[in-house]
């Protein structure tokens, strides 16, 4: 991957990638692996970007796909630790990465959601339009509104516990 490509096409969007990778990884080491893999996939798939959507939307979609694939692989490897889609709560407590305590708590809560719910809420918090979220997730726009409402309610319960 050329430095130029990384600097001009990935680095300006590294924030998005970091936010997504943080939500799907459970250690600094995992996070770095996920981040690297996403960057690599962006570089590998760059020719597939047809310009039908914004570059950032494309990066969102690709980052989510890569993270979900890596998570699946990790789950297979650590089946004894993962019984549901979400991270076990006791593992999350040890992974403190954000200086902002509220943000850390919010991330811990997000990690307790299912994989798809995590993707939806991340896109919502990044202020992506419902239509775009629906397109990325592969559902219809009406469902997204209902889903977000439910996820927010769940998050509220998790965060007030």
């Amino acid at each position, binding site marked *: *991957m*050329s430095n130029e490509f*990384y600097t001009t096409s990935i*680095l300006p969007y*590294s*924030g998005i*990638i*970091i*936010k997504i990778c943080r939500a799907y990884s459970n250690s600094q080491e995992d*996070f*770095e*692996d996920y*981040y*690297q893999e996403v*960057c*690599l996939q962006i*570089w*590998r798939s760059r020719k597939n970007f047809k310009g039908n959507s914004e570059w950032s939307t494309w990066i969102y979609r690709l980052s989510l796909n890569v993270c979900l694939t890596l998570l699946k692989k990790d789950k297979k490897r650590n089946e004894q630790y993962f019984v549901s889609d979400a991270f076990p709560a006791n593992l999350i407590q040890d992974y403190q*990465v*954000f*200086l*902002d305590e*509220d*943000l850390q*708590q*919010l991330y811990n809560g997000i990690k307790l959601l299912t994989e798809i719910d995590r993707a939806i*809420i991340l896109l919502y*918090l990044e202020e992506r339009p419902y239509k775009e979220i629906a397109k990325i997730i592969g559902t219809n726009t009406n469902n997204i509104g209902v889903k977000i409402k439910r996820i*927010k309610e769940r*998050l*509220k319960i998790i*965060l*007030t516990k």
Partner: protein
Amino acid sequence: MEKSIEQIWKGGFMNNKELTAPKINALYNQKSINLVDRLINNMKTELFTVIILGFIIALFITIAGNHIIWGILLLLINSVWYIISKKQLKDLNDTQFNSNCYEYLIEISKKIKKIARINKRNTILSVPLTLIPILVYTYYNNQDKTLGQILGIDIDLSKSYLFILIPIAMLIAYGLYIIYLKFNNRIENKITSLIIDMEELKE
């Protein structure tokens, strides 16, 4: 918590420190090491399986066939396989990483190809080494019988045709080894694609 999740999200990421990108220079190092570890572990399992199977077959021939010499012969060939495979494993394990995973993988890939070449040759060679003593023994102990009588099938041929079994078995062994290579090359393929990736990244 009084703030909404939207406020927490926005406020939390105001601090740019939360969004510092990790360095991606060591991209393939851990991946390479993991792949080679998996390759070595697979080879160890295969080696163990071959040895156990060889031992069981030798034991079966000795007890059920009442041919202790054949059993010993198989065990000998098995032991040679074991010694060669152990050496190959040691050679792979001794490959130095030296912080450059591209060169490391190239070196591993060369070694894998060499191992495959040697093992293919040994597989084919093992067939006559095993069969010749058995067939010679069978030939001289069945002086007045035909091939059909020896093999217990309805063929009226001279027992000299027994030795045709050698090239046939060698061909089968060769075919089986090729099939084995074709279906048991996942990690080798991954190593190759990793090398290609790295070559592309250098562009």
